[in-house]
């Protein structure tokens, strides 16, 4: 709200106060040459105005309230524009020919005589306004009816090309000057004949232009006359020619053609008369144009360079170099616009130096960092000295007004162009040159190290070109001498950089796009924000989520999809991502998996088959087993059933029952052994002992007292165990039959044989063993033998231990 009020207030102030104009003028301004007499007179007649050399355009000065000395051709247009309302013409100046009679006695009456006058001809001033007056006068003289500058320029061109005409040379034999100037020369000891050109010439009024009425003390005309100045009313003091018949004072309506003629006079003179080269600029407009064109070229060049390099630090150097050049040119442009403001224009002039001195330093820095790694920090001391010397140089230039060691000014003169160079100037220039030379040396050195041929050739070419320029400059060859030094330095800097580029010291590639397009690994460059910068043809888009994940962890690659693995490495200003195609790998893995699955299926099928087979086998075996068992047990069971049936018939004693039980037990154990035999497992001897004990016990019930000792540890082959068991049973049965109680049995190992001995009370020679048992004994390689002991006969089964004998 406050700001609003303030702005409203300011607007109101401007609205109400805009009408008044501050007026701090009060000077008398002159920038016309040879107006000194006039000025000194005015000093007396305008005592309250100090004389000052103008530092702006006179129109500006008049607007500021000053009084300007000027010609009518300046005053009238100003008054038309509303600048300066009061015009006090005092002096009538005529362009005349002043012929130095000390030098020549040639007879000259007008302009046309100049064609053949074989003497030096000159003007005595090269200010624009004077040029306008001279060209205007000659044009008027050569063609009064229809004046055109072509005639005048042709005359001057002819004279100049003949070596007879130049500007601002007061020693020439013929001077084209103002009449009162010539009179003044004469008064000061010259011997000039003043000729009013017979073909015609122009008179111009000189006077005061002011924005306010002036109070001039009376008598100024007399004073001017006495100083040898011609008055506007035609009065002329002594010393002027008598006949001014051909002089024509410009009227207001003449100004049109006069300005038509004299427009762009500087350029016309330079181009048409002096034949100035097209590559040098002829006037301010061309100056400005050339500066703008140069700036454009520099900026375009910067664009191409930035496009060609990626190295960030070198890009920065290019930026610095470019801005140094552009800044310099812009500052120059700005200075062109300043008309004569001494302090500001001097400040601008000093302002050139930071740029001018900065360029060699930047080039030197460029060569220093050339083969360094991009992120490598340079030791400060390498650039410290150059930088300090740069800063010192610049500060010396800027403080020049205080010490005047760089530029020496004439204390009374004009400080913007009246100067000479001081010792420090040469010093700082020398420093710049040292930078430049060091830069070139470094470029040479570093270029030589490389293997690329350009590394040696291009620096050489650059040096040759530079040298050629310097020679040309020294010899005043126009191409070098007349070109703009600033523009040259800019071009030289650009060339230097280009040379460095072409020596191969800076990795250059303008084919990145193509490279990426052709890259087979699907390469993508992403910038800091994850945007794709460059991409190969076959690379797919990297989505935001993937980019974020890559940013967190670049060490681990990640899957974009099943067949694409992304790898990333950080680079300056982003990351490079490339993709690995996993499709082949995945296919192989898939194949392996398929094979595995198939194998698994086959395996399980096989297993199933095996099991079925096994089951079948077991069933078969069982069947055989039972058949076998049936066969094996049939006789015993038959015998047993006979026995049991016989029990029904006969009333037997309990012995009989015990016997049957014994048989049953035997059958049962025999079945056990049978199965064991099928299982192929050996039988512990202890277990056999238990079986035998069982028989012994049952035999007790049947009335047979017996004892079987089984002293062996270890295992017995099942067949042999079964044989032993059968042998024991049958022996018990025989003993029961014979009532050969008690019976002693002993099972033992006898060397390699197994020996089962029974010692009955009665002779066992009568004992009948079953066919089956005997077959088995012989099968096993054993024998049943009787042993005649002293008082008894024992029966003994001997079966060899070890493997079965071959059948």
């Amino acid at each position: 709200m406050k700001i609003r009020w303030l702005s409203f207030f300011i607007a109101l102030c401007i609205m109400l106060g805009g009408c008044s104009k501050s007026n701090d003028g009060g000077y008398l301004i002159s920038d016309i040459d040879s107006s000194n007499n006039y000025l000194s007179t005015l000093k007396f007649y305008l005592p309250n105005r100090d004389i000052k050399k103008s530092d702006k355009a006179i129109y500006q000065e008049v607007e500021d309230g000053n009084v300007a000395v000027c010609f009518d051709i300046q005053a009238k247009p100003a008054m038309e524009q509303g600048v300066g309302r009061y015009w006090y013409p005092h002096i009538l100046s005529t362009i005349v020919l002043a012929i130095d009679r000390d030098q020549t006695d040639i007879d000259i009456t007008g302009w046309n005589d100049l064609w053949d006058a074989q003497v030096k001809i000159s003007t005595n001033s090269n200010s624009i306004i004077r040029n306008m007056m001279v060209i205007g006068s000659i044009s008027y003289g050569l063609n009064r009816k229809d004046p055109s500058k072509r005639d005048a320029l042709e005359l001057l061109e002819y004279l100049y090309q003949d070596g007879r005409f130049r500007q601002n040379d007061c020693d020439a034999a013929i001077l084209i000057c103002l009449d009162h100037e010539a009179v003044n020369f004469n008064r000061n000891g010259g011997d000039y004949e003043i000729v009013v050109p017979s073909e015609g010439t122009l008179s111009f009024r000189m006077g005061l232009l002011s924005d306010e009425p002036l109070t001039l003390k009376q008598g100024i005309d007399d004073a001017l006359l006495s100083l040898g100045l011609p008055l506007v009313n035609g009065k002329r003091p002594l010393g002027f020619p008598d006949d001014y018949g051909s002089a024509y004072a410009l009227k207001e309506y003449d100004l049109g053609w006069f300005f038509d003629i004299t427009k762009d006079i500087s350029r016309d003179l330079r181009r048409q008369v002096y034949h100035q080269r097209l590559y040098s600029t002829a006037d301010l407009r061309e100056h400005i144009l050339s500066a703008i064109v140069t700036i454009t070229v520099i900026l375009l060049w910067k664009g191409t360079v930035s496009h060609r390099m990626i190295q960030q630090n070198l890009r920065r150097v290019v930026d610095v170099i470019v801005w140094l050049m552009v800044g310099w040119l812009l500052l120059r442009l700005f200075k062109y616009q300043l008309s004569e403001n001494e302090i500001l224009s001097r400040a601008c002039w000093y302002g050139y130096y930071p740029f001018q001195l900065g360029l060699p330093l930047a080039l030197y820095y460029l060569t220093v960092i050339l083969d360094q790694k991009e992120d490598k920090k340079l030791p400060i001391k390498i650039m410290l000295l150059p930088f300090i010397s740069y800063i010192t140089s610049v500060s010396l230039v800027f403080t020049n007004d205080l010490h005047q060691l760089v530029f020496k000014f004439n204390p009374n003169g004009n400080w913007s162009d009246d100067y000479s160079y001081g010792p420090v100037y040469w010093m700082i220039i020398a420093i710049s040159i040292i930078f430049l030379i060091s830069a070139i040396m470094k470029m040479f050195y570093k270029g030589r190290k490389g293997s690329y041929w350009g590394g040696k050739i291009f620096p050489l070419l650059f040096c040759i070109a530079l040298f050629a320029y310097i020679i040309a400059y020294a010899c005043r060859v126009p191409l070098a001498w007349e070109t703009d030094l600033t523009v040259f330095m800019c071009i030289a800097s650009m060339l230097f950089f280009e040379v460095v580029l072409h020596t191969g010291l800076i990795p250059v590639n303008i084919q990145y796009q193509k490279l990426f397009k052709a890259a087979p690994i699907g390469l993508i460059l992403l910038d800091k924000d994850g945007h794709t910068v460059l991409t190969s043809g076959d690379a797919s888009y990297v989505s935001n989520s993937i980019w974020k994940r890559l940013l967190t962890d670049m060490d681990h690659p990640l899957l974009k999809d099943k067949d694409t693995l992304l790898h990333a490495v950080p680079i300056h200003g982003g990351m490079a991502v490339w993709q690995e195609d996993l499709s082949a790998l995945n296919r192989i893995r898939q194949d392996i998996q398929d094979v595995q699955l198939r194998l698994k299926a086959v395996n399980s099928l096989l297993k199933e088959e095996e099991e079925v087979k096994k089951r079948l086998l077991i069933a078969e075996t069982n069947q055989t087993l039972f058949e076998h068992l049936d066969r094996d047990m049939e006789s015993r069971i038959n015998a047993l059933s006979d026995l049991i049936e016989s029990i029904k018939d006969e009333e037997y004693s309990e012995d009989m029952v015990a016997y049957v039980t014994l048989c049953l037990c035997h059958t049962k154990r025999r079945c056990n052994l049978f199965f064991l035999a099928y299982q192929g497992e050996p039988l512990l001897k202890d277990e056999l002992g238990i079986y035998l004990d069982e028989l012994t016990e049952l035999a007790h019930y049947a009335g047979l007292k017996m004892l079987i000792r089984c002293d062996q540890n270890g295992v017995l082959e099942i067949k042999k165990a079964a044989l032993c068991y059968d042998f024991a049973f049958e022996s018990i049965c025989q003993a029961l039959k014979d009532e050969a109680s008690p019976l002693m049995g002993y099972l033992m190992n006898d060397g390699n044989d197994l020996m089962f001995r029974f010692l009955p009370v009665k002779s066992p020679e009568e004992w009948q063993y079953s066919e089956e048992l005997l077959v088995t004994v012989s099968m096993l390689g054993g024998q049943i033998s009787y042993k005649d002991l002293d008082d008894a006969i024992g029966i003994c089964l001997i079966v060899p231990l070890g493997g079965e004998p071959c059948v």
Partner: protein
Amino acid sequence: MLKKLKQIQALNALAKKRSVGMQRKLMLYWVSMILVIFAAVIFLLSVTGIFSRDDKQFHEVVEVHLINTKDRLEGHLENLTAQSLNLSKELSREIEETLMQEGISMEDVNDDPELLFRIQEAVYPFVRTTLQTADCNGAYAILNATTNTNLDGSNHSRSGIHLRYSNLSAGQPVTPTVVYFRGIPDIARQKNIELHNRWNLEFDIDQIPGCGELLKTSLNRPAEGYFWSTRIDLKNTWESTMLLCVPIVGSDGTIYGVCGVEIGALYFQFSYPNTEGQFGSAVSVLAPIKDNRLLLSKGLIGNVSGTYLDASEDLLIHQGYYYNEYNASDEQYIGLHQIISISNKEVNDTTWVVAILMPQENYIIYTASIRQTWIIFAMILFLILLAFSFFLARKFVKPIILSLKRFQQGEITEQSIYSGISEVDELAEFLNARARNQRLEQGELPPNIADLFDQFIERKNSLTEAERNILRYYIDGYEIADIPELAFISMSTVRKHNRNIYDKLGVTSRDELMLYIDLLRRCDRIQELI
């Protein structure tokens, strides 16, 4: 690009909808009102011509001119006086010498043509020199003697020499030709000077006012009694001139005659050119003033081109603050004058003034053109400001009236009415809300709501199945965040659907949508939406 444009449009719409406080608006109106009054005052003042009057500047300009001219004129006349006094001294010595040789007095010279010839012969070189050196167009010497006292009018006829330039012109002063206007022709013949075509032998001193009296007085020094005569017509010529009369005083105090220089009206005209300035042509005048009248007929006038100043007229002076008005019979002039003392002893107590005159007409034209510009500009400013105020007022009142109208017609919709003024908006909002609340309390709905609903339901038909599905979730009271979970779709999909739903149903926000749903529910029409 299109997206950006849309954003900007949306922003603009938002800015338009934002109301501005009444205080700020009023502030603006007050300022514009003040400006209008200001412009009106400027307009009135410019009509009266206050701005366009450049009196002060005119005064300054004329004053500078006057001072310049006066300085110049004073210098000029002083110069002439000095030279004339010198002439007088020389002549007095010469005459005295001659008289001494003859041993006679001046009176004895009467009727002695030979002596007169001798005296005039002696006088001639001095007169000639004076003419050549002084900035004048004629020089003369009158001896207090006549050739023949017996003739009629001999008492006012006096012998003497009068030399003048004959070919004065404004341009380049070529070598002037001296002619012999009065005097003994033998001298002219002797000196090889042409006689003036109106040549006379002797002066008629009655023609020169004060001259006769001067001859009769007795003085010690010539400086005691010199004066400028008023402008007189030279006898038998069309020229008129002013003469500087310096007595030739003998050592005994007798007046031997009168000598001096002449400034002709033409010569004065050439010497004092008029000055063209922004106010017109300024004429320099040297003239006596009497009874508040500037006697141009008795004075000299500078170059008059560009004016109609008549040299024979007398101008009546009206004193003014910045400038005086000088009225001629048919023209009016403005300018300034200042008294200048040019003679030592004025005849008839004449007061001489230097004046700078300019035609009033030119000044009026000048001021009129400025005034016209002022009036036009003030008028334009006034009209623009008036139009602006009108526009502002309209803009200020229109929305209020509109709102009022709507209020009166009871046309209050659910959307707020933007009057552009926050206070009014608030009031409207408040009234609206109250009315709405009342109606809602009574279970009443806005009258045109049915149409709205119909349209809304109509629009709903354009929804796709998926969108309808989403809408259903809204109807069921779910938030956006719930929908992905419920519909098994991503948030982006939901948002996309939302946009389509809003577009198709013609709502701008979820709040608006929810309002519709709420209202439809109240009306038991929610089923139609599903």
